């Protein structure tokens, strides 16, 4: 289509080519149009060139972005304004670096996307943290979701134009890592012998993660590692007698003794100078004072070489207390060491299981009517063993409820498993292992042998009308993994046991007192003066 200026003579003679006459307005329009075309062309070229070229610095960029994200996760996706302000500046900086230096996109739509991903990396994990504060999800799930979101990773990994062989390979590893994080969290829901007792703050998410995966040996019982659960599963699959239970969740601090915050007083020590390491010892018990003996020594190449002077040497922890510890070495030769705090204390773990008993005839009458005895008599389907928090676990044999009371008084067997659960210590010696049983029920043919305690020796914490069976043969034993005890159960007088009740509810309790030795170490470096 041709454009004719005003004044052209259509079909006239004279000049063969008519020159268009431009008005000043047309000139401006054309300039604007040209500039626009130029810029669009530039952008198009830039983008095409960019898409054809796989940026060489993308791998480095991804590492930087992921490191920043990992640090953010480590600090629990801090939502304080100051922390978010700092992160915002850093994310803006890496977006600019990414856009201009690494990706070389300059001011383009893609560079805008980079800024968008940075904003997502900042906001998405915090959205989960806020969701947890509103009760929509648990705090530890918020942390896990935040880690899984990793916007920078997913953005770069999903863009074909950014995919290099290195990104492809490392990306798969990162996906495996993220799946591991998810599996670890899901493992909390495994039907294992124990459950995590305390809910986690997102800020402690990294700590928990570190405890469970990176250094399970340092994890001291505030949760139970995947290794423990696998160990339990393995034992069960080997058909070894292993009874399980569920740890009681304490409302505040969990029961037990904890060595934490091992801190050298200097980043680097020097020869002939004293070496001082601090630690915090905390403990909680409902039952008795925890008397803790403390020692410390230095290890080199995993072998102890020198005892330190620890202060205090003995601590009594009442109910729920904590105290500071100090380990001092007059001097240590140049080298790398581990300073190990060792604590030794007697601790008790209790296990409980409540059985509901119903006479055979009563049970028949219910089945005959197809009435649910569980609903009608408020009886749970299975007996659930519960044990208290601490270095050990007590599992008890579960039975489908109600337990049938036969006219001859025979009952299904009773069994318990005493197992070590904490990873950074050892049960050195079982001091006592007792089972409290309602006096109408007798334990017989126990393996190992049980002794019925005399009334005078029962102790004050045993309820009225309860007998105490003591397993003397296990006393003094060191528990490497677990020890299992089984007994036959029998009711001596069924009518008086049932009385006129439709159901009889009885709790069995197990008390294990043991000496536990726990250590925790911190690395120090000693250099020349």
């Amino acid at each position: 289509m041709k454009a004719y200026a005003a004044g052209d003579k259509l079909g006239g003679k004279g000049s063969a080519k008519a020159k268009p006459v431009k008005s000043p307005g047309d000139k401006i329009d054309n300039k604007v149009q040209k500039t626009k075309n130029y810029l669009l062309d530039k952008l198009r070229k830039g983008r095409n060139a960019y898409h054809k070229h796989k940026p060489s610095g993308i791998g480095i960029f991804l590492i930087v972005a992921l490191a920043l994200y990992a640090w953010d996760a480590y600090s629990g996706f801090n939502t304080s304004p100051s922390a978010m302000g700092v992160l915002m500046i850093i994310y803006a900086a890496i977006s600019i670096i990414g856009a201009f230096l690494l990706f070389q996109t300059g001011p383009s739509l893609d560079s805008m996307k980079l800024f968008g991903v940075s904003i997502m990396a900042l906001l998405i994990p915090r959205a989960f943290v806020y969701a947890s504060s509103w009760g929509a999800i648990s705090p530890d799930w918020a942390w896990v979701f935040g880690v899984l979101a990793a916007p920078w990773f997913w953005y770069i990994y999903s863009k074909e134009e950014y995919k290099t062989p290195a990104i492809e390979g490392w990306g798969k590893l990162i996906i495996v890592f993220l799946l591991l994080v998810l599996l670890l969290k899901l493992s909390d829901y495994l039907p294992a012998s124990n459950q995590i007792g305390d809910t986690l703050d997102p800020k402690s998410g990294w700590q928990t993660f570190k405890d469970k995966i990176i250094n399970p040996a340092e994890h001291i019982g505030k949760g139970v590692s995947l290794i423990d659960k696998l160990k339990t599963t393995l034992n069960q699959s080997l058909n070894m007698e292993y009874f399980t239970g569920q740890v009681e969740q304490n409302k505040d601090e969990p029961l037990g003794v904890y060595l934490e915050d091992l801190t050298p007083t200097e980043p680097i020590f020097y020869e002939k100078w004293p070496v001082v390491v601090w630690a915090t010892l905390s403990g909680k018990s409902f039952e008795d004072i925890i008397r803790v003996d403390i020692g410390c020594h230095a290890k080199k190449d995993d072998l102890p070489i020198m005892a330190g002077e620890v202060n205090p040497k003995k601590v009594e922890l009442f109910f729920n207390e904590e105290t500071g510890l100090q380990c001092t070495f007059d001097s240590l030769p140049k080298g790398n060491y581990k300073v190990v705090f060792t604590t030794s204390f007697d601790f008790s773990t209790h296990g409980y299981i409540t059985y509901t008993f119903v006479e055979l005839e009563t049970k028949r009458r219910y089945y005959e009517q197809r009435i649910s005895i569980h609903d009608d008599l408020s009886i749970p389907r299975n007996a659930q063993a519960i044990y208290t928090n601490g270095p050990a676990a007590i599992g008890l044999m579960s039975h489908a409820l109600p337990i049938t009371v036969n006219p001859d008084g025979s009952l299904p067997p009773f069994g318990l498993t005493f197992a070590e659960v904490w990873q950074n210590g050892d049960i050195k010696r079982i001091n006592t292992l007792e089972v409290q049983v309602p006096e109408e029920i007798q334990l017989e043919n126990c393996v190992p042998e049980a002794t019925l305690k005399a009334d005078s020796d029962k102790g004050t914490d045993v309820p009225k009308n309860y007998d105490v069976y003591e397993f003397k043969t296990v006393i003094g034993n060191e528990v490497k993994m677990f020890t299992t005890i089984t007994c036959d159960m029998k009711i001596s007088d069924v009518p008086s046991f049932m009385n006129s009740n439709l159901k009889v509810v009885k709790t069995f309790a197990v008390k294990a007192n043991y000496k536990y030795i726990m250590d925790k170490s911190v690395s120090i470096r000693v250099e020349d003066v």
Partner: protein
Amino acid sequence: MIKNKKYFFWMPWILLLILTSCGPGNNPYLENYYTGIKGVEMEFIGNSPPDEIYEGTEFPLAVFISNEGAFSLNGSLYKGTLSYSFDPYYLSVKSDSISKADLVVEELFGKSYTHPKGGIGVYVLPSFMAEKIAGQRESPDTDLFISVCYPYRTTLADEVCIDTSDFVDVREKVCEVENKVYTSQGAPLVVTSVDVGNRKDGSLMRPSFLIKIENKGSGMVLAPVEEKDLSEACELQKESYYKSRWNSVKISAELSSEKLTCIPDEIHLRDERGFATCFLDGGVYGGNLNYYSSLVVKLDYVYMTSISKKIELIRSGIPTYDYSTDSGNCQYWQTDVGGGNCIDNCALCAQGANFPFCDIVDSDWDCSCGANECLSVIGSKKIEEWLGKQTEVEIEFANGNCIFGAVSLCQPGKFCCVKQ
């Protein structure tokens, strides 16, 4: 005209209001109290027992009992008995707080025109005590289970048509035979249907009824008892003779005051249902009779309903300890050999003790080695020199004559080794 239209619109509604406001529905004499499937019902009163209770404290237990059926517990023969069960590990009864007589539900009227809402009563059961929580458990929970057992009766009274004609009668019939279906009679056990029929007896016809019953209540039917034993109907239930007869109901029926023979006279319920056939065995019966007659069916049984509540026990606070007594425990590398005498595990093993870790200790070993004795220095440098001269040296640990590792045989800094 418009005004008239409005008048006609409102008139029926106003009439309906007037008619229903003083109608027979509010007349207690005309109310049918023989409806509903409830008998004696229970519920816990308010906060007794509470949802949470501190250990070592006493708490009351009270239940509200109402007779929502149509049969009255008269307090003499017909009376209920309360019972309770609990886990003695967590709860105990204050034995002096109640007698056995306090657990008897004496007089509790059923619904009638004199007691349109049925009888109600508040029963204060024994005070309970939450035991001190033994061991390390923080907040266990436990169930408190209450049940009430009571003898009860379901009564069905209805008019039935009897027709004993076994041939075509040209005369006009008084009534047509029809089977009856019922939903409730103001009791947990319900007569659900009555099928009216005849049994041929020679030339005569006996009126016969197939009576079906069902337990529609929320509880359990126990064993029926003889009338002379009614006052102890619930106590007898624990005897094996009675227990084997649980889910049984005694049935009796009358037709125009003539007692019917029921087979069986004690129905054993299966899947909460049962039936019996009742027929006229004596009195007047014959052929070609067609009349209305009143049928009364009575079911006598002992019934039991239960309620339960979960109570959470809470630790009341920090425990009390006697600080004056030290445990006298040995150190973790030692063992108490009696009388508070602590000996190093290494020395004990050397003396022949049978600890699991003693396998690696020989008889001539003790804790006499320090780090110096356990180290051998490559390059002929003694550790003292090394410490003194700050010389960089390689060291290695000798495993042959010292025991290192997790087994605690000696105090820190000392190692179990061949006597030096």
